[in-house]
């Protein structure tokens, strides 16, 4: 009778090496029978069996296998190099992309307890505004009432002219509320952060320096704390220095406290981004619910500004979420797509190497049969194969790591400037672990293919000279065919993906951006409010600068604006046509705003469709005139002329007269639909409270290479105000190029991945067809000796290759159709199921497959029957 204990022993016996197994079971049976066979006694059988198993797999034995594997690989340098490089490319590509994904998406933000950091803003999808930040009033309201946040702060970017010696420099700064450093929980390296009182109107102006700025401009002098430095014409006392690596929010090097007067807090101007730290025990969901509650209370308290109906209309609600999500949301999808893509490349590489191993295993039949005859068990042979494939995979992984290190350098050079957290990208422990894991995984994947077919070698067949037409051979052929089909299918998916991205890129390039980027030089400048305190002084500066720039030899047109098209500057406000005001709870469109000097449309090459340009007399302090975009004109006065109509904005009593209509330009992204846009004079606001434009971009239309005009333009700027730095001079072509950089980056990487996939797939088809031909040389020889024409042989062999490719293409088309929807948000002007891309890709792959089968087929057709028969 088989008791539980004996059953257990038989189960455990599977671990025991085959040749010892029978005696082993007998021994345990004997003891159990003699001792009443309790399960308690039998338990140790597992450790006994495990001991015997391990004894066969000693360190020594493993090292011997590895040595044998290395020797075997070195003896076949061509095979080893081909397989190793294929793997290195696949693994290297994955490691490179993973190191980016790891740094940008997976690693926590570099702040203490960064999981508790949240972005505290609003959203209004109803008017297509994904992030709607704070006004001074909402900030104060939340600050006072939040219970689920332990700290809350708002900030905005601000560029600061810093004067330390003769040369002024422009520094990326941020204006932040007092709690800013508390939210991020980063203490200053020297001195202090901001404290209560720093933010009061009339307090001594202070600033905190970033580490880099402290090192470069102040030579790392510890006595800088307490000194007074001129920033934007204001004398500020340096109170602290932040530690190295701290540059939040935006490569920031300088922080200035924001003073908000509760009595005069702005209610409706939303430009301050909010961050917060969750209170202990609070969740993101809970805090967001509280924020929504507070937002509704805010609306109820300011019915003249905002009502619940208005909020419902534009779907305005709180949007409190993890800070990391906010930072990486733009690139998240592209990065995952890229990682998926290189994952496909690795699969194709594995399929190729598996194929190489299969072919090689074929040639080693006799060697294996010999080993088996000499007593090697199935497990021994599996172990031997896996040792070999793992050795190769780890070697490939090591090489891949080197390729990835180079690749990451290249990626960072190509990466769009807006790639968040780029400085954090590099090879760290988790990247190495990832590389190790995918190396081992690929080693097992391609190592198992030959094992499945060959671990049970057909001893008698293989040992006999020329034993080849076995049934196992058919099985192996099926395995190879499967691999080719898989390769073709995967390559097709990648080609379709990159084809769709390439078409998006072409569509972007052919978009009418509405202005002429060629032969335009642009640079930025910032007027300190201390030197230019009022509208009159700013206006005078703009007039003088325009005149001076226009006088530079070779300049065809010059103008200033708050921001050139495609520059990342957001400014928008609700407006309404004076002759048809919106109803009580109706909100007009959020109209984008730019300020321009006269001559801007000419200098930028924007067509004026109707009316005229602005003049020097126009402005909030003079004659109120505005030029609007064609889209805004259509929205306010559909089917009618807009010129001569008036627009209400800010102050209902001071409407602005439309004097011209300009053609639409892409002003934020190349892919945006045309949006309403109004061009105001450089002095905006109201007659009582004019708002002069001090952050400006200067546009020069020149006759030849724009960059050749940089020094002349710098001199011209100096002539007008020697203390103003010229910032970021570049061509308008470069601005357009940068705006498309993230798409061209994705296109390039997908293209490279698809190219590798195509190459590997081609090699795969060629390899299998060549192999089939070499195996059939004898048969083909016989048939040709019997009179079969070469053309029939040719057609047959090519047909075999094309059949495999055909199945692969069919599977790939279905796969691409299923997978391409993840690309939807990255595509522009092309549908994810674009038939042209699909058909073109399928045709390309078919052609490549044809070529890959043609070469071996030609060889088959040229077989000399006599030679073929004699070879046996």
């Amino acid at each position, binding site marked *: 009778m088989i008791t539980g204990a004996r059953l257990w022993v038989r189960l455990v016996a599977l671990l025991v090496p085959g040749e010892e197994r029978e005696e082993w079971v*007998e*021994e345990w049976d*004997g*003891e159990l029978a003699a001792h009443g066979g309790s399960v308690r*006694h039998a*338990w*140790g059988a597992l450790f006994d069996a495990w001991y015997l198993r391990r004894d066969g797999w000693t360190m020594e034995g493993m090292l011997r296998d590895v040595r044998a594997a290395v020797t075997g690989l070195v003896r076949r340098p061509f095979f080893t190099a081909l397989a190793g490089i294929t793997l290195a490319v696949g693994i290297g590509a994955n490691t490179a992309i993973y190191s980016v994904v790891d740094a940008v998406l997976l690693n926590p933000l570099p702040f203490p307890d960064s999981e508790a950091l949240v972005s505290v803003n609003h959203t209004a999808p109803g008017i297509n505004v994904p992030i709607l930040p704070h006004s001074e009033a909402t900030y104060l309201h939340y600050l006072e009432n939040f219970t689920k946040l332990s700290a809350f702060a708002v900030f905005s970017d601000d560029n600061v002219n810093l004067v330390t010696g003769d040369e002024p420099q422009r520094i990326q700064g941020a204006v932040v509320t007092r709690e800013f450093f508390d939210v991020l929980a980063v203490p200053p390296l020297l001195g202090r952060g901001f404290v209560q009182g720093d933010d009061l109107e009339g307090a001594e102006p202070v600033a905190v320096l970033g580490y880099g700025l402290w090192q470069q401009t102040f030579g790392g002098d510890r006595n800088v704390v307490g000194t007074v430095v001129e920033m934007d014409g204001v004398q500020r006392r340096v109170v602290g220095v932040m530690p190295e690596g701290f540059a939040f929010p935006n490569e920031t090097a300088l922080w200035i406290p924001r003073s908000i007067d509760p009595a005069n807090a702005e209610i409706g101007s939303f430009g301050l981004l909010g961050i917060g730290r969750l209170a202990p025990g609070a969740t993101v969901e809970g805090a967001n619910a509280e924020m929504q509650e507070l937002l509704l209370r805010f609306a109820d308290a300011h019915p003249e500004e905002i009502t619940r109906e208005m909020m419902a209309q534009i779907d305005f609600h709180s949007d409190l979420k993890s800070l990391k999500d906010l930072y990486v949301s733009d690139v998240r999808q592209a990065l995952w797509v890229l990682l998926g893509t290189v994952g496909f490349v690795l699969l194709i590489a594995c399929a190729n190497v598996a194929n190489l191993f299969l072919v090689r295993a074929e040639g080693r039949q006799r060697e294996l049969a010999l080993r088996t005859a000499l007593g090697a068990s199935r497990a021994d042979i599996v172990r031997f194969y896996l040792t070999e494939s793992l050795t190769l995979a780890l070697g490939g992984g090591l090489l891949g790591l080197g390729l990835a290190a180079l690749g990451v350098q290249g990626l960072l050079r190509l990466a769009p400037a807006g790639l968040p957290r780029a400085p954090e990208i590099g090879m760290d422990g988790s990247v190495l672990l990832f590389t190790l894991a995918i190396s081992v995984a690929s080693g097992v994947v391609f190592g198992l293919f030959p094992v499945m077919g060959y671990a049970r070698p057909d001893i008698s067949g293989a040992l006999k000279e020329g034993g080849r037409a076995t049934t196992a051979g058919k099985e192996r052929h099926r395995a190879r065919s499967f691999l080719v089909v898989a390769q073709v299918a995967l390559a097709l998916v990648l080609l379709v993906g990159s084809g769709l991205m390439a078409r998006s890129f072409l569509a972007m390039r052919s978009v009418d951006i509405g202005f002429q980027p060629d032969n335009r030089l642009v640079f930025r400048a910032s007027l300190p409010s201390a030197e230019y305190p009022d509208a009159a002084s700013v206006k005078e500066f703009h007039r003088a600068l325009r005149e001076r720039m226009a006088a530079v030899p070779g300049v065809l047109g010059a103008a200033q604006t708050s921001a050139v098209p495609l520059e990342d500057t957001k400014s928008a406000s609700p407006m309404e046509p004076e002759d048809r005001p919106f109803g009580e709870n109706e909100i007009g469109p959020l109209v984008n705003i730019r300020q321009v000097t006269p001559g801007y449309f000419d200098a930028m090459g924007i067509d004026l469709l109707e009316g005229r340009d602005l003049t020097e007399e126009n402005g909030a302090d003079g004659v109120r005139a505005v030029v609007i975009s064609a889209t805004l004109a259509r929205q306010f006065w559909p089917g009618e002329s807009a010129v001569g109509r008036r627009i209400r904005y800010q102050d209902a009593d001071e409407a602005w007269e439309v004097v011209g209509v300009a053609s639409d330009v892409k002003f934020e992204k190349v892919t945006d639909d045309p949006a309403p846009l109004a061009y105001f004079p450089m002095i905006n606001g109201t007659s009582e409270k004019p708002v002069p434009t001090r952050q400006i971009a200067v546009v020069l239309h020149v006759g030849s290479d724009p960059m050749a005009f940089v020094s002349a333009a710098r001199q011209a700027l100096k002539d007008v105000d020697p203390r103003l730095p010229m910032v970021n001079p570049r061509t308008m072509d470069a601005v357009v190029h940068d705006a498309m950089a993230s798409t061209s980056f994705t296109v390039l990487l997908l293209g490279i991945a698809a190219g590798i996939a195509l190459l590997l797939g081609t090699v795969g088809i060629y390899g299998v067809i060549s192999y089939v031909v070499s195996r059939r040389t004898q048969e083909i020889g016989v048939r040709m000796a019997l009179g079969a024409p070469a053309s029939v042989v040719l057609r047959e062999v090519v047909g075999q290759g094309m059949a495999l490719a055909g199945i692969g293409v069919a599977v790939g088309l279905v796969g691409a159709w299923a997978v391409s929807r993840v690309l939807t948000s990255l595509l522009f002007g092309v549908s994810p199921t674009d038939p042209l891309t699909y058909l073109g890709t399928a045709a390309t792959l078919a052609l490549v497959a044809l070529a890959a089968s043609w070469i071996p087929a030609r060889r088959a057709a040229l077989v000399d029957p006599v030679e073929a028969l004699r070879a046996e």
Partner: protein
Amino acid sequence: MGAIRMTQVTALVLRAVATGHRYGFDIMEACGLPSGTVYPALRRMDKAGLLRSGWEAAEAAHAEGRPRRRTYTLAPSGREALGEADAKLAEVRRLLMDLGPTPVEEA
């Protein structure tokens, strides 16, 4: 073959075999160790030549209606190893005695 480390387990198992315990489970009970510890030790010493393994006579087993049992006996090198282990143990004991009685800690 090759040297084998003399541990408490190997010494105990060797002594059990030396005192006439021939079968695996008997050795196990004599040592008071679990089978998962005793068996790997037996395999190791068998392989190293300290023990000699064989099978009891088939007739004896069949008479009792059960499978044969494997037997373990001491090989000459095993006897030697046991002698060395005993000598080492005596040496340790002598060293301990020389140190005198365990001192009583003062409060």
